[in-house]
């Protein structure tokens, strides 16, 4: 009997009852918006099956890569790159750092000699990444490498992942939310907003609503009024002229704005390309249509594209890049 109280009860209570209770009451958080907003996965976590997708941020060493991808969190997983590039296309991906006028020196230091640079940037960061002047004079790593997600991340692992965040107490906060403009967390917050035809476009339980990043509203979205890009100038100064700019539309732009706004954004990007002598990939009109073609094109609980969205994006970009490369070669460029 003493062993029961001394050993078995503590083991059962601490080791079984508490973990089971936490898992029963709250779900592990998978989306960035549910995590930042302390909102329940049970309401916003996607339910329809997603195609598996491999993440491959690169298939070549720095000095062998023909294509350099510089991107943000949409590129970190390497998902769209895996769909975009075939084995013959030697590419490598880097994350944005303090991109600056010394871009060329940094590429040289890293041993990078790309023929093509693909700049991927999410719409809300376009102004900051592409249009802001280089103010950094200190030589610091302009690009930061990305870890290759070769295995599914087990984010609950105490030793490697964000353990605490997985069991954030989101349920009570969500139930007590004051209204559709409910804001939670910090850093711009997360908005729960009604989506027209939501249950056709999303698979999560509370599919009439979806989560959107507050920064989609707080930061400038396309179209903008300025066109001159210090970053493109820095790349040109480094001798790189084959530049492709890919702007991923904000989730808010795709689901909550009008088709006209999407067309205006694409028109701006086309103009931006002409003025800076770079190739741009207008995606706003396309994604506006894709949200009806693909359920969970963006995840309901996340600000990023779903697996399927990444695959579609990768295929689209891959076809585009290959066709333009062929066109360039045929034109003798």
């Amino acid at each position, binding site marked *: 009997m003493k*062993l*029961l109280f*001394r*050993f*078995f*009860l*503590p*083991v*059962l*209570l*601490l*080791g*079984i009852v*508490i*973990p*089971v209770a*936490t*898992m029963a009451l709250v779900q*592990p958080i998978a989306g960035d918006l549910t995590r930042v907003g302390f909102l329940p996965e049970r309401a916003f976590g996607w339910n329809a099956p997603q195609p598996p997708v491999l993440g491959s*941020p*690169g*298939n070549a*060493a*720095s000095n062998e890569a023909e294509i350099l991808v510089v991107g943000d969190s949409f590129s970190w997983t390497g998902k769209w790159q895996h769909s975009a590039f075939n084995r013959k296309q030697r590419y490598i991906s880097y994350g944005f750092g303090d991109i600056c006028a010394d871009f060329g020196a940094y590429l040289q230091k890293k041993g990078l000699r790309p023929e093509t640079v693909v700049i991927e940037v999410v719409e809300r960061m376009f102004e900051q990444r592409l249009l802001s002047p280089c103010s950094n004079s200190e030589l610091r*790593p302009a690009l*930061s*490498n*990305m*870890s*290759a997600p*070769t*295995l*599914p991340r*087990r*984010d*609950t*692992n*105490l*030793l*490697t992942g964000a*353990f605490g965040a*997985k*069991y954030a107490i989101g349920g009570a906060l969500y139930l007590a939310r004051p209204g559709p403009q409910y804001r939670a967390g910090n850093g711009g917050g997360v908005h729960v907003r009604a989506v027209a035809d939501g249950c056709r476009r999303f698979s999560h339980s509370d599919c009439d609503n979806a989560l959107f990043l507050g920064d989609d509203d707080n930061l400038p979205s396309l179209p903008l009024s300025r066109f001159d890009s210090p970053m493109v100038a820095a790349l040109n100064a480094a001798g790189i002229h084959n530049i492709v700019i890919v702007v991923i539309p904000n989730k808010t732009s795709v689901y909550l704005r009008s088709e006209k706004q999407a067309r205006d954004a694409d028109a701006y990007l086309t103009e931006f390309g002409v003025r800076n002598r770079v190739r741009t990939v207008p995606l706003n009109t396309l994604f506006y249509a894709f949200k009806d073609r693909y359920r969970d094109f963006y995840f309901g609980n996340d600000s990023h594209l779903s697996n399927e969205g990444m695959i579609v994006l990768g295929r689209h970009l891959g076809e585009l890049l290959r066709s333009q490369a062929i066109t360039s070669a045929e034109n003798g460029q």
Partner: protein
Amino acid sequence: MLFNSYEFLFVFLPISLAGFFVLARIGTRFAAAWLGLASLGFYGFWNPKFVALLLASIATNFAFGVLIGRQRAMRDAKPLLTIAVCANLALLFYFKYANFFLDNVNTLSGWELNIGTVVLPLGISFFTFTQIAFLVDTYRGKADEADFINYLLFVTFFPHLIAGPVLHHGQMMPQFRKVETYRWNPQDVAKGAAIFIIGLAKKVLIADSLAEYATPVFNAVAQGQKLQFLEAWVGALAYTLQLYFDFSGYSDMAVGLALMFGIRIPINFNSPYKAASIIEFWRRWHITLSTFLRDYLYIPLGGSRRGELRRFLNLFVTMVLGGLWHGANWTFVVWGALHGALLMANHGLHVVGIRLDRVQGLWSMPLHVVATALTFILVVYAWVFFRSDSIGNAWSIVQSMTLVHGISVTPTLAAHWPQILSEGGFFPATRLAGSSAVPLIAAGLTIVFFLPNSQELVLETKQRWCRFILRRADGEFGLRAGLALGCVLAVSIWSLTRASEFLYFQF
């Protein structure tokens, strides 16, 4: 079904444990039959089709065992033993080695022989070897089992069925016959639960974390990348530790589960990386397989009875076949051959009188440290062949580990150390996150070299701090043990978001 899965922890284990002790009150035969059936259910959860194969194997071997036991003269029993052993090996050959054999024949001859994809039944190497040992010992007059339920339980007992330890009937049958085995013993259940929890934590928290640094390195080489010095070592060390924590974690869970049912099964690991020689390593690593290979392969080959040269040859052949037992790939053969060669060298040193245990005094400790480090490094190099999917890829990693492909270190190393680690500057091919890989590997090395193993923790508890946490003055588990193990179990269960298979399931 995996030990590290919700369905096992929350459904299978409580039901099988409760059913066992409730039925034991009615009769021990009911409890044994229940455990046998539960074990078949455990096996069938993976693929019900193969339960029939397992049952057929058990029934056939039991029948041969009975027939062999009935023969008065060994001469009469020998044909029966030969048929039975050949049948077992044929089964193993078909499922495990047939495609490997045909691939090699096709390569050499240019033919295109094909038998299609053969699904490898889980645990076939383990239950085949267990039963061959039973047949051989019945032939030798060391075993005589006429109770089918006990035999069924001996082979299928779920803690060891899929990945060992390789059990010997002499260790198990007497326990199944004893009435005390079937009595609820809270001390045994507590100790078993403690060992199980430690094993679960080793698998879920440590081995699976290390896999995230080992796998990309070996995958990168498989995709044709050339590794540099540091990332090759990170990958090799991560896999060395992953394999130990994975397999020893599984074995701990098996030992713990068995003890919860009142059954004592032998330990399989005894801090192998603390070994100061290859001979000692094999006395500490996968102990039950080493014992099996010694008793049923090395000694029948002649052991050390026919002179030193023959002894060395026997050692080498045993290790090569032991390597091949792990899988149908030349990499396993090379791994076995490497260990065979190292064992021969180690015994050769003994023959000429060079033995570490004879060194006394001041030099004893430093030599022991050097010998331990050297043994560990040799074992790490050998694991590269064990893990790689081809000899060429393994050789590429070995070259990288030996600086053939260079080292990725920048001149600004000192100034930018944290940044370089976090950016994967040392790991150009895999772009591993060095900032988390290096501490994790350092933690793993600290555990394997300096901390007591799970048996020492729970059963012996020599260290003072272990006694403080786990035991009271009277030697029983105290409240601190309950709280500590409860916390470890909670963290492990929270981490079970993705059930990952044990490495030794493939063998």
